[in-house]
């Protein structure tokens, strides 16, 4: 069951990240916007991160047959995803200049409680959690300003990814509980929520302009 969920999660993550990344890249090529460039890096990183973990599971299943994914592959995939989450949060921090943001400072102390060991995977998961929470809050604040309904879906998506990341981390405490499968289902829901508004952006008549730099 967990293997199936892992495969679905990583494949959905790979495809959603790739789709949004390509759309951001098309936007960057057509407008030269630095924001769209940052989104391109963010979603390509997220996509590659999920793909690395999916590859790890495939190698384990068909080659090594060790019964568990190589820890370093999982850590590498999560680290690459964290880079992606960083660029989403970074785009917001440029907009709002985060040192003035009191709620960012308030969630900044969470790693002290979350990081229980020096294992890199735990650190990356907690950093991802903070970045996702920050992105979700900023996107929701943006919705309150602009009333763009797509922002609700993206905010919920980032929030669900954050919750999934937290439960995934917390499942280390209760390894055989329902927490880990639940975290994967929640993250799949988050990825779908992220993709909903993006799928509604019409891309007809948008093309690469070779002359415009």
């Amino acid at each position: 069951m967990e293997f199936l969920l892992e495969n679905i999660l990583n494949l959905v993550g790979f495809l959603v990240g790739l789709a949004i990344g390509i759309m951001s890249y098309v936007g960057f090529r057509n407008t030269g916007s630095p924001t769209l460039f940052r989104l391109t890096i963010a979603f390509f990183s997220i996509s590659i991160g999920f793909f690395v973990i999916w590859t790890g599971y495939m190698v384990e299943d068909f080659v090594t047959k060790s019964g568990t994914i190589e820890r370093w592959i999982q850590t590498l995939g999560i680290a690459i995803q964290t880079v992606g989450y960083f660029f989403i949060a970074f785009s917001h921090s440029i907009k709002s200049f985060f040192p003035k943001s009191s709620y960012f400072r308030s969630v900044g102390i969470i790693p002290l409680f979350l990081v229980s060991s020096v294992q890199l995977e735990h650190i990356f998961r907690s950093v991802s959690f903070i970045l996702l929470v920050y992105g979700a809050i900023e996107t929701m604040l943006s919705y309150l300003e602009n009333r763009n309904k797509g922002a609700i879906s993206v905010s919920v998506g980032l929030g669900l990814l954050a919750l999934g990341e937290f439960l995934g981390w917390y499942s280390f405490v209760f390894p055989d509980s329902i927490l880990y499968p639940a975290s994967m289902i929640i993250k799949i829901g988050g990825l779908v929520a992220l993709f909903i508004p993006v799928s509604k952006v019409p891309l007809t008549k948008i093309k690469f302009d070779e002359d415009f730099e």
Partner: protein
Amino acid sequence: MAEYRTHMKIIGDILETTRDDLQDGDGASVTYLIRKANISHSRISAILKTLVSQGLLEKVDNQGSNKYKISQPGREFLQAYNKFTNFADNFGLSI
């Protein structure tokens, strides 16, 4: 409170002005663009120079005064700009 505009937003405003608010068929004057896009003369001069060099605007010499018209690539850029503004809005960001 005044809204902060990114460089990209200012370019979008200038192109939209030249597309939608043409005073006549000859294009928009710099003074008109300064008023409509709400930007200083020194800043708009640099932006107009860039937009003309990129082929997004056409400079028209009209009885000794320079006027600016949006070009076909400019219209295509504006279309892409509007679509990807909505795309970035979904993420709570401005392009």
